[in-house]
């Protein structure tokens, strides 16, 4: 076959175009892919730039805490009385230096009946993370004895609007102390997490009505009222597979005496001992917990020994795949000559894990002359943990 001189270039051009056409199509597709990838890269760069803003520097500042608003309808001898009230607004400040040191401080703001604001320092410690198993904490700390005071009392954690008898201020469960504490955890095999807390602090005081120890007092004294340090701690074991947590607490030392009418230290002191045990058990939506605590103030001269003890058992059930929970708790406290019982039952609506609405009935009974100790209540609380 003969190809003319004019036809040859045209043929070559046609063949070249024909051979490059798929490439051009492919190039077109590739460009679209590259463009799409660039868009993705730009999105990623934007996200990374935003994330970098929050990348951890060597120090971190963090604000946490909790707050609650309350309504109570009280069945008094004069009939029913009801009030709205703000509970506690308790911001917690954290200042952390890498994974070595953290300062933590919780303030508690409350209003009294007249609207005046009161402020308390619930705790303030500087924590030094010594190693994976021990942290040294110095300052004012929530008492590590028992479970309710150190872990359960914040309103967004406590499943009922009030505390069990004997686990509030002035009760058998110590509130706080000032001193040093070493705490942490370690593994026992693969199925048990052990945790511990040991402390040495200024200790507690006995609030005296004449020769009678009227009240156990442990607000966290900023001076040692008895001249001797108290020490003790708690050891807990958490059986992971059975979701069972067991704890034992023990402490000893001395307690200074405070006259209840003047509020002044008398200079006298007596022996002081504490024992306690607690447990938590979870199975599906069921959460059962309980605690027993006992403080003993030794005898001094004609003033007799005084025991303060308290116990509670609480059962809660979270309905599956709902935000509803029911809770019941019974508690009893004993102090010299006085027994107080409290039964509380309620229902909670859990908006989020830390925003909870509670409605509860609280029945109180006591062998005292104070009619307030026998008042039954309907309590409503909105609790917020942040």
């Amino acid at each position: 076959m003969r190809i003319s001189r004019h036809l040859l270039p045209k043929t070559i051009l046609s063949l070249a175009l024909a051979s490059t056409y798929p490439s051009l199509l492919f190039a077109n597709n590739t460009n679209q892919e590259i463009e799409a990838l660039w868009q993705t890269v730009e999105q990623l760069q934007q996200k990374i730039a935003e994330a970098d803003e929050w990348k951890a520097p060597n120090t971190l500042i963090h604000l946490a805490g909790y707050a609650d608003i309350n309504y109570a309808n009280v069945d008094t001898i004069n009939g029913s009385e009801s009030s709205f009230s703000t509970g506690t607004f308790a911001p917690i400040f954290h200042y952390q230096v890498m994974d070595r040191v953290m300062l933590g401080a919780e303030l508690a703001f409350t209003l009294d009946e007249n609207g005046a604001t009161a402020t308390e320092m619930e705790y303030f410690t500087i924590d030094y993370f010594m190693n994976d198993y021990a942290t040294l904490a110095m300052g004012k700390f929530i008492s590590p004895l028992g479970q309710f005071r150190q872990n359960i009392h914040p309103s967004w954690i406590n499943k009922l609007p009030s505390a069990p008898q004997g686990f509030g201020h002035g009760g058998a469960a110590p509130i706080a102390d000032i001193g040093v504490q070493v705490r942490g955890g370690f593994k026992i095999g693969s199925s048990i997490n052990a945790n511990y807390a040991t402390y040495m602090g200024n200790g507690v005081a006995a609030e005296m009505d004449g020769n009678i120890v009227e009240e156990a007092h442990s607000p966290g004294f900023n001076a040692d009222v008895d001249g001797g340090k108290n020490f003790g701690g708690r050891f807990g074991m958490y059986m992971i597979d059975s979701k069972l947590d067991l704890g034992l607490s023990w402490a000893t030392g001395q307690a200074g005496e405070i006259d209840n009418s003047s509020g002044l230290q008398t200079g006298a002191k007596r022996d002081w001992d504490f024992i306690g045990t607690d447990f938590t058990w979870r199975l599906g939506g069921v959460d059962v917990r309980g605690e027993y605590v006992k403080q003993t103030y030794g005898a001094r001269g004609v003033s007799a020994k005084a025991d303060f003890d308290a116990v509670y058992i609480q059962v809660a059930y979270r309905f599956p795949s709902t935000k509803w929970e029911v809770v019941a708790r019974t508690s009893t406290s004993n102090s010299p000559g006085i027994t107080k019982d409290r039964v509380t039952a309620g229902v909670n609506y859990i908006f989020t894990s830390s925003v909870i609405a509670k409605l509860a009935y609280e029945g109180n009974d006591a062998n005292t002359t104070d009619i307030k100790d026998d008042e039954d209540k309907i309590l409503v609380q909105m609790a917020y943990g942040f």
Partner: protein
Amino acid sequence: MKNLIKSTAALIATAGLLLISSTAIATDGEWPPKGDAAKGAKAWADNCGRCHNIRESKELRDDQWITTMFHMRVRAGLTGQDTRDILSFLQASNNTTSNFVRPTASKTTAAASSLSGEEVYTSTCIACHGGDGKGTVPGAPNLTDKSGRLSKSDDALLKSLTNGMQSPGSPMAMPAKGGNSALTQGDLKNVLEYMRTTF
């Protein structure tokens, strides 16, 4: 005076012993060191419900979780390793990169899997869904319910596994890829098949 000397000596001796026993934790580089997110998922499910409702990852930013976890380490008596594992899990669960879709994803690389469905389930899912699939934490569905979660289509379930999900009425969400961002689409398909055949 004797009491004072004894107390002070005991305090100094105790502090000295503790400081001597302390080991360096912080490094010059990134802190805290990365933990194991898969172990963290289990530790999170095991420990955080001991006192309070379990908080989901999206409640806080990654940097806020650092301080929160160190606070909880002191409060709950966690070991340093458990703390880092849980922190890594929570931070990985906050990862939103799964929102980005590769325009022309290569099916072979996206689907690559080196883990069996059982391996994925026992390392990542079991913490919340339990060995029997009935759930160990509030909000986790019962996977053995024939008309329940696993009755949905593969596509719908893979989407939920990939991006995370929150059931209506459930107090907590399942994080994207169960909080284990290293899982591939192939891993997710394997674990879905494992759940379908096992429960």
